[in-house]
Every structure is written in structure tokens, then in C-alpha cells.
């Protein structure tokens, strides 16, 4: 652990009486959620609040010939019916590009479609009414005439000359393309003893947050201010975007985010219907609320992971990987999503494939194409589940081909634990990873040898179990390299302000947001520890652009590593300020004093000198008794941004143990393990629960979740009965283990942990299924999700 020693030699920072770093402190604000007294945006009601519902395009691609709203306007309770053309006068369109993704292009997108609807579900007309039900009644009375246009749905033919171009001004349907060629790939394949080549398919899926997207916008014309209650991961980013596209200054917009019913990357993007709601509030000069219903969620929440990857690996007889090659094709819908773009997932796949291994020869190409389906963008673990599944799928296929144990195969190829700092073939810079230690830990934690013996014994009885692994690396704590350098106003720094109240308790204001991951607990732990107070004296405020330091919010596993460090530093700074006051009151040198358990003590002896309540009383109510010229400063702010490394990479390895019913094709998950290295662990319980939750989302991708479309671009299963998500009974217990390699970029040394589970789980479930079926002569399954029919097909049973 690399926590700077604050007060040597008496106590190290970790041994201080109020050190909460590394402790499983329960989250401070959970009672309001367990008692049903949270405040989600869907719960918010304001005086004069109206509700908006949208008429959405039933076609994947259609020209809007006419919109007749007379009947709807007469419907009981309807306040306004607003078309895209009308709303375009209130809000400017946006284009989702980043300059560092060279060549990435997209078309202007409006809050409500103007002239042409580009996917089934795109809003075409808004109906605002007293209640949501009345708004929906009104929607049924809006008559829209469409001229259906040919729908571009198959990425494989999206760039063909005979395929229509969705946005004529762009010239073609290519959004973004990237190529990478490192080392001597052709030579390496030619000299390999074995080459494995296959195609991996990843089904489109989505986040399915239990609370749908929700926004309440409140334009107050008398103040010229827009207040937006929004379930978002990035309040300051949204403040900027609302202001920009309403032609307001940022200070005229306040974004408030309280409880958020799940986000997972779904709620960090610009959604046309949410932008429309904000614009409607400006237009109608009253609060307007929009809560997506579940069908709207399925056709408008960003989708992700729809990739086809042709992949190839070369190996020598001794198990050395000689080369990796991938060719990625992905269709991202009709627009690159604003402002993070829809090129990032493919870009990440190019960056991350092969990342854990020493192999120097790597070639990749990725094509991102437009199509007439719902948009795709960044969802939890962006690109990682795909890159890991491709890499680890190839690794286990190669190991099987040369007859080597998959763990032994990895031992021969994973970057050595003493090789750091180093970088991957793709150029990713690694400060310190621990692949081999993590693998050894996993090996013993799961009793690998014992499981193999059990597998063999059961095989003899006709029971087919499989063991699969996935080593992985994970991007966390992103610097400005992710978005800022590309021109997006998405900040990578974050801030924390800590204030001593008049009774000696602390209040933290932080720019990161609570999405349920426990960010508020982590912030409280950091400040309580660095300041020296019991955690129950710390209150955390997040999610308010008027009252928190400017920050990026919660995404890319940054809240603990970046927001936590800012809070840690702010706590330290306030401690210095408080000791200065104590020194003045006690006529002592501040350096000779310390704060422990909320009491100022002599550093050397620990003798109690002054309670914080008394200090605060004097500083706030009797400052006249302090020495002349002395001013108490009982509020301190610190900011932090990673500078030494573009990203704090984490690493880990997962394993899945499962049983395949070869008669029905059903997979029974028996157990799952994950060993992960996220640097300093601030709260072990929260880290483990992030991993478990992430693993289950990854399992969903492997076995169940799939946004199914027909060839006309119609989503076929946009409801929770037909779109399957993991249920409790299908999920295994998940054991977590840890290796700790802190980053030296921050004093805390914490890296992110929110996405590692999702990154590795699909790959190891895939590998476990193939391990179970390999002796039966089944073709390797590489087409997620692995539904029973695909498994039976692989077995030749259907």
C-alpha cells in the first residue's frame, strides 16, 4: 500500500484512528433506499408540471410527409403538440464526433426527427399534456404520413455501392475506420506451428436499467434559468450540452441528480427525447417531465456490442503466441452518439485485443458503419467484453489445438509481473500489472486441479461440465486522453470541497455522482481518513452543478480513483486549516498537533486538547477571540486528474464452471471466480459487489441478452418478457479475490473496479461451454449469446 505517511513515526496514514481505507464500511445513505424513500427522477413532481409522450417512428427509415395534430390538440388534457421542425427553432442540432478519432463523421441530429426518421423508435412528434396518460392518448390521435425508405440494416453490406446512403451529405455509410499493423504479422503466421482462425459474433444488447431514463426540465423565464432533474452519470457534461444547444450560458443551467435507478453507461449520453423535453420546457415556460416507458427504453436507450470479428492467432509448439489479427465490423445505428461518439467501442477493441500477452505481432482493422437501427454507444466496460472474448477465445482454441492446458498456456504468454513499466503491441502503457500473481491466486482459490478431476469423473457418467478462463486488462481512471483531447467538453479532472460545520462535522461536495456503486461511501471514507474524524460525522453531497466542484461524474471506473483522491486531498487540506485554527487557539505549533476521532490532540502524546465542536464555535461565533490578523478557513477544495499515465490499467482473471445439458442445450452455471487488481482497495465489500454485479451483466451477454432485429430494422423483442436478463435462480455464487498493485499516480493508489466483471465474464463462460463440448466433437461456439438452440446446433442435434 502506498498511502503517504502523514505523521511519522507515531502512526502511518493507514493506522490512524480514523483510517477507513481498506475497510468494508456500509454505505451511509442506504436506509432511504431500503425504506422506499429515495428520490429518483421518476418520483419528482413540480407545480404546473406537464408530461410529454412521443409519437415514434414505426419505420426504420422513412420520410415524414405530413403531421396532422388537430385531433390530438383537442384531446382532453393536451397542452401542446410539437413537431421536430417547430422544436428545431428552440434547440440546435448536434454532431457526435471527436477530433482524435481521425475521420470519424456523423450527421446533425435533432431532438425530434426533421423530415426523415432514421430508426424505429425515433421521436417524430411530441405531445405535452397534464398527465402521461393524457399525453399518450394524444399521441394516438396524431396522424403522420410516412414514405417508407429502404432500411440499411446489415453492416456487411452497408458499404456496398448498391446500398442506399443514409445521410447523403456524408457520401457513404462509413462512420469511422481504424487500422493498426505492429511487428511482422505475416512472417509470424508463416512461421507458426499452428494457426487458429474463426469468426466471433456479439449480439446487440443494452443496459436495461431498472429505472428507465427520466428527466424533469424546469425553465423559469423570470430567472432565465433552466433547472434539469436528470438521472445522469455526468451532470456537468449535461449542463454544458443543454446550455450549448439552447444558446444559454452554462451558469443559466443547473443539473440536479439524486438517486439514479441504474446507469451502467446508459445514462451518460445525449438522448434526443431528453433534449426535446428540456427544449419543450423552454418553449412552454413550465416544467415538463419525461420518463421512458420500457418499450421506449428498448428502442432508444443506447445499444452496444453488435460486432462481427474475424480473428486469427498463431502459436508455436511450445505454446508461444506468435501473432494476433482481427477484422472488426460494427453497425452503430444512424448517428454517432453525442458527445462521446460511437467510434469508441471499436477503437477500444483495436487497442485492447491481445493486451495481456507479450506477443509483439498484431494487426487490426475496424470499420464502424451507419445503419437504420437504434444507436449504439458506450455501455459498461466499453469494448472490453469483446476484445477479451476474442483474445481469450483464440487463446483457449490455440491451447486446445496444441494440446496444452489453458492455464499453462497463459503462464507462457502473459506479460511477466516484473516487466513493468511496459506497453502492449497496440501501444497501451502499463504502469504495474499482476497477471501471474492473479492467475496463481485463482488457481488455488478455485482448486483447479480438483475441478479438473471432478470434470473427468463426471464426464464418465455422461455429465458434461466445462471450465473456462479469461485474463483481462481494464481501462480505468481516464485522463484527458479519452475525450478532452478530442474536443469534447467532458472533464477528466474532478474536485471535492470539504467544509467544517458549526458543530465540528464535515460536509463533502464532490463532482462525481452516486449511481449505486457506493461513491458516496468511498468519498466519506477518504475524507474521514485524511482529516481524522469518525465517518458518521461526514455527510456527502453530489449531483448538483450549482453546488459541487466541476467534475466528470461517474464513468470509465473513475469515481473512486479520481473523485476519491480529490476528496482525500481536500480532507488533508482542511485538516491543515483546522490545525492552524487550533494552533492559534492553543498557542501551539500546528505541526505539533493532530486530529484524531474529531478531537485535536498533541501529536506526540495523544493528549486531547480541543474538540472540533469547540473549535468551530470559536471560529464561527467568536472569531474576535482569535489573534489579530488570523482568519480561519474552514472550507477547502482540491482537484485531481491523472497525469503520469493516460489510463490506470487494472488486470485480473476470471473462471467459470458450468454444466451443459446436451439434450436441451441449457447451461447451468455452477460457480464463478474473479481475481482482480484494482490497486489500493478503499472498500473491499464495495469492490467485490462491483465485480459480482459486473460479472452478472457479462453473463447476461454470454447467455441471454440480445436485441433482436428483423431485416427491415424492426426490433422484435423490445420488452422485458422477450428480452432476457439474468434472474437470481440462473446465477451462480461468485467468489472474488484480489491482488493489490497501487498506482503511483495518486496518493491513495486506487484504480477503478466497476467494469472488470463485465469485461471478463462473457469470455470465460464461452470458453467453459466450449471446454464442456469439445470432447463431444462440437464446433466451437463463438456467436453470443449462447442460447440453447445454438448449443444444440453445435452438437449436431438440431
Amino acid at each position, binding site marked *: 500500500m502506498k498511502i503517504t505517511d502523514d505523521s511519522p513515526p507515531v502512526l502511518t496514514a493507514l493506522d490512524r484512528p480514523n483510517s477507513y481505507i481498506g475497510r468494508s464500511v456500509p454505505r451511509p445513505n442506504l436506509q432511504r433506499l431500503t425504506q422506499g424513500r429515495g428520490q429518483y427522477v421518476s418520483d419528482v413532481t413540480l407545480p404546473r408540471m406537464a408530461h410529454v409522450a412521443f409519437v415514434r417512428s414505426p419505420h426504420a427509415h422513412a420520410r415524414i410527409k405530413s403531421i396532422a395534430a388537430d385531433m390530438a390538440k383537442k384531446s382532453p388534457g393536451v397542452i401542446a403538440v410539437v413537431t421536430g421542425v417547430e422544436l428545431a427553432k428552440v434547440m440546435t442540432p448536434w454532431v457526435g464526433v471527436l477530433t482524435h478519432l481521425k475521420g470519424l463523421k456523423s450527421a446533425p441530429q435533432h431532438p425530434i426527427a426533421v423530415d426523415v426518421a432514421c430508426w424505429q423508435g425515433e421521436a417524430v412528434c411530441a405531445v405535452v399534456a397534464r398527465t402521461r396518460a393524457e399525453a399518450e392518448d394524444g399521441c394516438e390521435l396524431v396522424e403522420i404520413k410516412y414514405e417508407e425508405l429502404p432500411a440499411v440494416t446489415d453492416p456487411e453490406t452497408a458499404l456496398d455501392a448498391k446500398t442506399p446512403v443514409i445521410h447523403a451529405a456524408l457520401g457513404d455509410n462509413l462512420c469511422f475506420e481504424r487500422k493498426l499493423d505492429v511487428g511482422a504479422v505475416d512472417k509470424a503466421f508463416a512461421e507458426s506451428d499452428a494457426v487458429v482462425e474463426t469468426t466471433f459474433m456479439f449480439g446487440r444488447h443494452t443496459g436495461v436499467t431498472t429505472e428507465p431514463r427520466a428527466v424533469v426540465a424546469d425553465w423559469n423565464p423570470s430567472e432565465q434559468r433552466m433547472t434539469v432533474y436528470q438521472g445522469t452519470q455526468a451532470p456537468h457534461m449535461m449542463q454544458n450540452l443543454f446550455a450549448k444547444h439552447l444558446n444559454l450560458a452554462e451558469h443559466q443551467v443547473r443539473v440536479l441528480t439524486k438517486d439514479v435507478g441504474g446507469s451502467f453507461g446508459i445514462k451518460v449520453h445525449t438522448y434526443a427525447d431528453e433534449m426535446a423535453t428540456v427544449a419543450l420546457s423552454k418553449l412552454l415556460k413550465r416544467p415538463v417531465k419525461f420518463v421512458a416507458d420500457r418499450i421506449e427504453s428498448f428502442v432508444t436507450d443506447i445499444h452496444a456490442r453488435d460486432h462481427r470479428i474475424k480473428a486469427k492467432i498463431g502459436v508455436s509448439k511450445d505454446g508461444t503466441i506468435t501473432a494476433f489479427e482481427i477484422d472488426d465490423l460494427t453497425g452503430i445505428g444512424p448517428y454517432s452518439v453525442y458527445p462521446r461518439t460511437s467510434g469508441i467501442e471499436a477503437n477500444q477493441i483495436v487497442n485492447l485485443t491481445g493486451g495481456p500477452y507479450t506477443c509483439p505481432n498484431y494487426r487490426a482493422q475496424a470499420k464502424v458503419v451507419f445503419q437504420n437501427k437504434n444507436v449504439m454507444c458506450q455501455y459498461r466496460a466499453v469494448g472490453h467484453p469483446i476484445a477479451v472474448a476474442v483474445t481469450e477465445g483464440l487463446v483457449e482454441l490455440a491451447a486446445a489445438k496444441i494440446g496444452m492446458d489453458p492455464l499453462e498456456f497463459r503462464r507462457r504468454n502473459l506479460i511477466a509481473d516484473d516487466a513493468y513499466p511496459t506497453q502492449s503491441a497496440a501501444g497501451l502503457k502499463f504502469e504495474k500489472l499482476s497477471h501471474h500473481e492473479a492467475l496463481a491466486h485463482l488457481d488455488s482459490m478455485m482448486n483447479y486441479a480438483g475441478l479438473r478431476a471432478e470434470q473427468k469423473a463426471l464426464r464418465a457418467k455422461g455429465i458434461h461440465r466445462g471450465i473456462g478462463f479469461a485474463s483481462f486488462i481494464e481501462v480505468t481512471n481516464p485522463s484527458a486522453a479519452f475525450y478532452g483531447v478530442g474536443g469534447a467538453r467532458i472533464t477528466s479532472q474532478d474536485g471535492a470541497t470539504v467544509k467544517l460545520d458549526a458543530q465540528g462535522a464535515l460536509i463533502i461536495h464532490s463532482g462525481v455522482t452516486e449511481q449505486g456503486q457506493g461513491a458516496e461511501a468511498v468519498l466519506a471514507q477518504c475524507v474521514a481518513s485524511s482529516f481524522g474524524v469518525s465517518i458518521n460525522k461526514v455527510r456527502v453531497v453530489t449531483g448538483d452543478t450549482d453546488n459541487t466542484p466541476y467534475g466528470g461524474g461517474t464513468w470509465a471506473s473513475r469515481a473512486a480513483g479520481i473523485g476519491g483522491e480529490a476528496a482525500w486531498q481536500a480532507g488533508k487540506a482542511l485538516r491543515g486549516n483546522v490545525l492552524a485554527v487550533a494552533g492559534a487557539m492553543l498557542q501551539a505549533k500546528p505541526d505539533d498537533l493532530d486530529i484524531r476521532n474529531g478531537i485535536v490532540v498533541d501529536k506526540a502524546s495523544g493528549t486531547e486538547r480541543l474538540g472540533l465542536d469547540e473549535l468551530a464555535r470559536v471560529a464561527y461565533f467568536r472569531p474576535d477571540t482569535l489573534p489579530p490578523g488570523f482568519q480561519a478557513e474552514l472550507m477547502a477544495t482540491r482537484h485531481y486528474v491523472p497525469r503520469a499515465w493516460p489510463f490506470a490499467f487494472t488486470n485480473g482473471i476470471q473462471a467459470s464452471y458450468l454444466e451443459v445439458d446436451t439434450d436441451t442445450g441449457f447451461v447451468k452455471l455452477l460457480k464463478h471466480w474473479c481475481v482482480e487488481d484494482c490497486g489500493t482497495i478503499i472498500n473491499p465489500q464495495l469492490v467485490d459487489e462491483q465485480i459480482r454485479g459486473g460479472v452478472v451483466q457479462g453473463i447476461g451477454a454470454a447467455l441471454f441478452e440480445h436485441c433482436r432485429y428483423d431485416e427491415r430494422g424492426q426490433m422484435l423483442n423490445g420488452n422485458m*418478457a422477450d428480452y432476457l436478463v439474468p434472474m437470481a435462480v440462473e446465477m451462480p455464487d461468485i467468489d472474488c479475490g484480489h491482488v493489490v498493485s497501487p498506482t503511483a499516480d495518486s496518493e491513495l493508489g486506487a484504480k477503478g473496479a466497476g467494469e472488470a466483471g463485465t469485461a471478463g465474464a462473457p469470455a470465460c463462460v464461452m470458453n467453459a461451454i466450449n471446454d464442456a463440448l469439445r470432447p463431444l466433437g462440437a464446433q466451437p461456439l463463438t456467436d453470443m449469446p449462447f442460447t440453447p438452440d445454438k448449443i444444440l446446433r453445435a452438437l449436431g442435434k438440431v
Partner: protein
Amino acid sequence: MSHFALDISLTVNGERVSERVEARKMLVDFLREDLGLTGSHVGCEHGVCGACTVRVNGEIVRGCLMLAVQCDGATVETIEGLSDSGELADLQLAFEQRNALQCGYCTPGMLTAAQDLLKRGGVPSRDAIREHLSGNYCRCTGYHAIVDAVEAVAQARAGGKP
């Protein structure tokens, strides 16, 4: 006929309630919009996810599948009432200590469904807990912590270790 309304009287969390409601209004919308009881959540709107689970006449139901007018004369209990009565106190504490919730949106329904199992007595197996809670979707936790919390409360109520 969308605005056809009926008068209903029922007991909600021990209080007598008389309201005129639209015939088409679902119980969960009535609780949330008319009574301000926003602890019952709307997730899937068709009886799959369990976020709107409430108790009607002692049985757990989906608030999105039952019309408010069907509750005329009924006794309805929501997470707010079950919290205030203390009936769920040990289960809520176990969820908090085990971090068996993250975003918390599924939690009121999850607690109500778990209590329905625990009321039957005994210590159900982990598989039985998982089976019983499979009508309540959680996207955050992966369920492991929820099963741990429910199991711990079952053991404690049965007089075993806490």
C-alpha cells in the same frame, strides 16, 4: 372510455383512503401519483421485473398488473408501511450491511418478495431463495449479496447465527 372513473375506498398502510380513480389506472400508478407513495417503482410495466411488488390482502402482487379499482375494499401495504411498522427492520438492516442493493430501485420490491418467503418460516436453501426471488430483477448486484442477506435473516429468525 379512457376517462371513466370510479370511487374506491381501501386501507393503505393502515390509513383509510377514499379516492376517485380512472378505471384504467394501475395500482402502482395510483400509489405513486395519487397517494405519493413513490417507494413502489415502475420497471417493466408488464409484470416481469417485480419493482412494483406490493402486498394486497396479505399476498404479494404486481402493482403494474392490478388495477387500482380492483383494490376497492382491500388492504394494501407498501414499502413505506412495511418500513414504518418495523416488520422488515432486520431484513433492511441485513441488506444495508451486506450491500445487497446498489441503485436501490429494485429494493422495495425485492424486500417485499423476500419477506414473503421468510414469513413461511424455516431456513430456505440458497437455491430456494434464488428461485423465490427470480421474479424480481436486479441489474446491479448480481444477486449474490441479496441471497446472502436473505439467508442471514432466515438463520437469525430461526434462532441461529445472525
